[in-house]
């Protein structure tokens, strides 16, 4: 008798069918390594969803035309050198916010606009210095609505200890925008040489997630009213993470890389890591923190929480021997109270992310295709 999963069974299976299948898989891997090309004639919603189409648009159009050594790194923030200074760089990042509805449980577009940009600086190890805010307003927008959003931005900025120091306003005719769009730009300082970089990720590293996945995306989806579901305890997780990142770095933890898991969710960040660092990432389903409400929404709608957006969670890749400390430091702070080790970095197969299912199987976790959740940030 041959036990399932025993060496004998597996060898037999490999001998019988692995070869042609393996060849096909290898060919696919080759094709995936090619530079993507933008084939569409028009922009579709998929290009904004943070998955494969977004990635293609950014690399094949923006990256291609605007290419320069700083942009080509495609980081969450760019680091500019100051003349005559070599131990500190200027970190710059920008982000636009077009969320609908403007207000949702746990936050609003203003708070997102502040926290999102702070987080893009924070995950690069930068200390935020100040923000700019640009507004596109639709003719007919209630001033009371605008006031409420701007007051929320003020509160968020105060909470984060960062000022909004400059801005811009444009008004467009009714119907040419949806109420209110905000673009924020953040400037910060980062110590050089940078401790955090994609190339520092090596096999053996451990992947830590700072808290539960999918709160923001599921909250906004329900708040849109497109689906007739209610979940009383569901709140957006929007929050600034620079305190958490500073705590990790100050504690001397050997963090190799961090990224906040926004559009496209944790799965997208892990795929970006696997592809850019040329490694594999294996995660363990049982260890993934997810709130019950999110699990419920995801289960009903057939969406995987791994792909749902967050606005206050980061993925940190840390040296194996510092993994426990990293989780400890995160859990000592409210932003990281539910932090957990979720997986590890492996040498191969390059560019792939795997999930060990709680059921005992293994599957691929690919980048998001299409657009399950429109306009969530």
């Amino acid at each position, binding site marked *: *008798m041959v*036990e*399932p*999963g*025993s*060496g004998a*069974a*597996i060898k037999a*299976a*490999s001998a019988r069918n*692995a070869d*042609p*299948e393996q060849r*096909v*898989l290898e*060919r*696919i891997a080759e*094709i995936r390594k090619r530079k993507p090309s933008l*084939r*569409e*004639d*028009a922009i579709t919603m998929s290009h904004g969803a943070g998955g*494969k189409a977004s990635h293609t648009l950014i690399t094949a159009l923006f990256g291609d035309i605007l290419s320069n050594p700083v942009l080509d790194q495609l980081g969450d923030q760019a680091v500019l050198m100051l003349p005559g200074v070599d131990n500190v760089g200027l970190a710059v990042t920008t982000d636009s916010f077009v969320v609908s509805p403007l207000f949702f449980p746990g936050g609003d577009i203003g708070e997102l606009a502040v926290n999102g940009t702070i987080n893009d600086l924070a995950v690069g190890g930068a200390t935020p210095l100040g923000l700019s805010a640009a507004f596109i307003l639709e003719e007919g927008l209630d001033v009371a609505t605008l006031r409420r959003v701007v007051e929320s931005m003020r509160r968020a900025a105060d909470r984060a200890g960062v000022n909004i120091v400059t801005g811009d306003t444009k008004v467009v005719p009714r119907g040419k925008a949806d109420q209110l769009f905000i673009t924020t730009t953040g400037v910060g300082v980062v110590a050089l040489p940078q401790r955090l970089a994609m190339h520092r990720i090596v*096999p*053996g590293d451990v992947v830590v997630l700072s808290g539960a996945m999918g709160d923001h995306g599921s909250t906004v989806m329900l708040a849109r009213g*497109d*689906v007739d579901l209610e979940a009383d305890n569901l709140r957006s997780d929007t929050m600034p993470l620079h305190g958490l990142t500073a705590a990790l770095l100050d504690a001397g933890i050997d963090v190799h890389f961090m990224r906040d898991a926004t559009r496209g969710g944790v799965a997208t960040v892990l795929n970006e890591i696997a592809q850019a660092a040329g490694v594999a990432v*294996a995660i*363990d389903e049982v*260890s993934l923190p997810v709130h*019950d409400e999110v699990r*419920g929404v995801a*289960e009903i709608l*057939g969406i995987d929480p791994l792909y749902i957006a967050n606005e206050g969670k980061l993925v940190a890749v840390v040296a194996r021997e510092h*993994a*426990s400390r990293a*989780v400890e430091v995160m*859990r000592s702070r409210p932003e990281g109270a539910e932090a*957990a*080790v*979720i997986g*590890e970095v*492996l*040498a*191969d*197969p390059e560019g*792939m992310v*795997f999930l*060990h299912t*709680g*059921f*005992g*199987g*293994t*599957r*691929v976790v*690919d980048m998001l*295709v*299409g657009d*399950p959740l429109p306009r969530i940030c």
Partner: protein
Amino acid sequence: MKFADEFRDADIARALGARIAAESGDRHWKIMEVCGGHTHTIFKYGIEDLLPSNVELVHGPGCPVCVIPMGRLDDGIAVAHQPGVIFTCFGDLMRVPGSEGSLLDAKAAGADVRMVYSPLDALKIAQQNPDRKVVFYAIGFETTAPSTALTLMRAKAEGIRNLFVFCNHVTIIPPMKAILDSPGLQLDGFLGPGHVSTVVGIRPFEFVTNTYNKPVVVVGFEPLDILQGVHMIIQQINEGRCKVENQYKRVVHDDGNPKALEVLARVFKLRSHFEWRGLGFISQSALELQDEFAEYDAEKVFSVPGVRIADPKACQCGEVLKGVLKPWECKVFGTACTPETPIGTCMVSSEGACAAYYNFGRYSRARERERVLASAEHPDGNGNGNASGNGAERKFRPIPAQVG
């Protein structure tokens, strides 16, 4: 019970996998899961990793999106482009390629295409937009047809006249029969569609056991349901039995849901024939609206091209749907045809065999084999993945324990 964890228990799964291995003996088994929902579950949970290598799951035709032929989609897109129309459909249909682009492309070109989660959402949109014509592109088997029927009955009762249904509802029995009749097919049994059976019951599958002498087990959608279904088929054959069994008793009644069947009969009638992607025309395999609902029938109200478009030559969706080819055996799989640039429908829906294999299955089996091999050959290996070693050589080491 919290969610469905009890149907996803890894220990029970391993035990069941071992029993299947013991009872399946040395012969090769081919079992087809008819329903796309099952295909999705199989890949999502990595169920094939728990089965012995001599038990093969063949992915069947029951993915509603996958069986829509290109011409029907072109008709839908033509309706979407007509002035004053709000076109509604389920999300995964939006990326299916027609002969000249998808609904997503139509949307980008200015058509008002909206994703809905239920036909009732379309009804709501119709009520909110009385000056617009709201078209619901209905797809699916007996599972989704009752909700379309109820929506139409409500629209009629409430006198809502601006809702139209473009009906592509299909029935599960005719394609199963077409597959059973196709030459060269070697299947040992079927995992029957759980959701469809909640409506039609389990008796309609008796022709499979009586005429074709293949056992059928109607199963649910949790991973343990599927493993148990596989086990039940192997048991039947080993014991020389051949019948329709119901594994999904917690949901499926043997007689189905008489009320839903009544609603279906009131709103729909059988089409004389309908084209299936990859399977060709199958007689009496789809539903259209009864004459009483003709004023809601988008095919009658709007002019549509109605042109039959041949499947792209390179596409072998038909062979995949019939279970003759494995997804990766298709000539264009993963190269010209990927989830972001699908050629065939099997690559679009997450329930499609190709998309499921591409998204979830790819690599996992081969790599899992390697992992278990490595641990089996290692002195302290016990088959649970506790392979040790160091540095870049290591594959799939155990995840470090959580802190706290």
